[in-house]
């Protein structure tokens, strides 16, 4: 009887804590967003970047591919010799840097996000299957991953791009196909630890199908680390696209990407720093925004994060 009373009081305490929590996921997510400063900043940055990408045609003050040989290598407006016509200056062919950054958002964002999505999906599936089944399946898949890792990714991409015409779609696919191995490795490691948890054993003992266990028990529990890696690798992907442009295999002119701009600006770094600096800043800000947003998303997906009435996530 005494024991019963004790458990009742336990319930009451929990009642009080949880009163505030019977709300929908959307509302909880938004509250968490407002609570975290970095989350809010990340959210605003990403929304802005996406809007810029969508409305690039309207926002760009000049045609990004238009040469103006009378106004080459103009510095940004606030420096000597700059004009407000070209706010962030012009490049060696007299093209407006600001317009090129605005239009370049499209390619960089598309390549960055979609190749990460593609790589993530492949890596996630292979990693979960390898980790969960173990044994021979694991061995075969991981040796496949190893052999992929053994080939220098640039070499692989070069070969593919030599065969196919470099286009946005081909770039996304080829970058996705080279990057999945990292995901597969990390996901497999996580799965190895999660499949030993007792709730997976419990589910097995109930008689749940393997596919369902992977989907319901394993996947949700690796999602947070997965999101963190994905956010980080958007950055490396944008840079990878840049290095491909440098080799002449990335986005082809007259299309423009941040990476290509970085590469072009490299030669002028000592004399005309704005050519490489502004696209570099664009990459930095975007990546930072995505990482912040990723952190927030991770918090939302973790039921342990509580909405704090006084503000500030716990």
């Amino acid at each position, binding site marked *: 009887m005494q024991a019963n009373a004790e*458990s009742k009081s336990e*319930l009451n305490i929990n009642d009080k804590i*949880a009163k505030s929590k019977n709300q929908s996921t959307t509302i909880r997510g938004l509250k968490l967003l407002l609570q975290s400063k970095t989350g809010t900043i990340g959210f605003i940055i990403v929304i802005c970047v996406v809007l810029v990408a969508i409305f690039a045609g309207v926002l760009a003050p000049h045609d990004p591919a238009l040469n103006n040989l009378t106004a080459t290598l103009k510095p940004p407006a606030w420096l000597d010799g700059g004009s407000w016509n070209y706010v962030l200056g012009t490049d060696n062919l007299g093209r407006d840097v600001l317009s090129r950054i605005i239009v370049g958002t499209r390619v960089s964002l598309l390549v960055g996000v979609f190749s990460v999505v593609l790589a993530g999906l492949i890596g996630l599936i292979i990693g979960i299957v390898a980790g969960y089944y173990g044994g021979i399946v694991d061995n075969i898949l991981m040796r496949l991953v190893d052999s992929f890792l053994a080939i220098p990714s640039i070499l692989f991409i070069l070969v593919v791009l030599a065969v196919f015409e470099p286009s946005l779609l081909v770039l996304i696919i080829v970058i996705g196909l080279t990057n999945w191995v990292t995901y597969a490795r990390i996901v497999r490691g996580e799965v190895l630890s999660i499949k030993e948890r007792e709730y997976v*054993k*419990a589910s097995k003992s109930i008689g749940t199908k393997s596919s369902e266990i992977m989907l319901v028990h394993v996947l949700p*529990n690796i999602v947070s680390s997965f999101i963190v890696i994905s956010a980080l690798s958007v950055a490396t992907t944008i840079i990878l696209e840049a290095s491909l442009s440098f080799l002449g295999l990335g986005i082809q002119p007259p299309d423009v990407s941040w990476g290509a701009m970085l590469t072009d600006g490299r030669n002028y770094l000592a004399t005309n720093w704005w050519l490489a600096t502004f696209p570099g800043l664009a990459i930095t800000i975007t990546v930072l925004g995505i990482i912040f947003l990723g952190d927030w998303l991770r918090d939302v997906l973790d*039921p342990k994060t509580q909405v704090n009435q006084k503000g500030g996530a716990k």
Partner: protein
Amino acid sequence: MSVVEVKEKTNNYLLQIEGLKKHFPVSTTIFGKTKQTLKAVDGIDLYLKKGETLGIVGESGCGKSTTGNTILRLIEPTEGKIIFEGEDLVKLSKKKMQEIRKDIQMIFQDPFSSLNPRMKVFDIIAEPLRTHGVAKGKGLEDMVYELIETVGLDRSLAKRFPHEFSGGQRQRIGIARAIALKPKLIICDEPVSALDVSIQAQILNLLLDLQRKFDLTFIFIGHGIPAVKYISDRIAVMYMGEVVEMTTKEKLFSETKHPYTKGLISAVPIPDPKLRDKTERVIIENDIPDQLNLPEGCRFYSRCPFGTERCKVEKPKLNEISNEHYVACHYPLN
């Protein structure tokens, strides 16, 4: 206990285990040949009557949890028979085994890792019902709420996540999940050893209530003698992968026959100092022998205060020395 004897008694047995072995390969040669094996469970015989609770005790690493896992084939046995309601589970196909899982459920040791942290209580308890297609929609909801109340929780807690509960409450959720399919047999794998003593009593009482209510049969695995003594009808004592003594609870404590059992019982602290001084104790010394190189004779020889030359070379068999009292010892205590 010989196989013949077991077969004669088959009728009222829910579960019979014959010569169950589980050997884990520890190291292999480069050609994939097994060099060393760990004999976690090494030929045990157990039987379980309908509606009773069989306790399995023994120190860490004696194979009691492995035995539990093998019954559900969460670990495939190396050898032996597991006869559940006349069917040998070892021989069943995977598909048929999934069907049988409805009748055998498990309660786990660690209530903090046995519940998926990303699932709500409702979904955790509904999982077995959904998996076996027992109920859907409103019917499912009613069943889950009823289960939550059966284990002594409030139905308003259904939409919460596991981290919002205490250890005892989490164990209740685990129990609700185990009884959801109205199983015949529940394997309790040290269900109270991770809980506070005050909560342990609650959970044990809950298990006893449920047993009466739903006519359940339990295998209760534990290393704490008091908990096992409280809940079990019969107790099997395991040592290094073997059953060394098995009998009714009363006999095990009043007519202890195996020196190891005596040692285990002596190790339980007695609160009353006067009583403690009067009690005759058997102290087990030394460590357990190397599990990879098991001794030829009695496995308890190196630690047994009464061991003789015979024990060193000849392995004692599990014999029925009086009604339902099985002991594996050349020189049972009086």
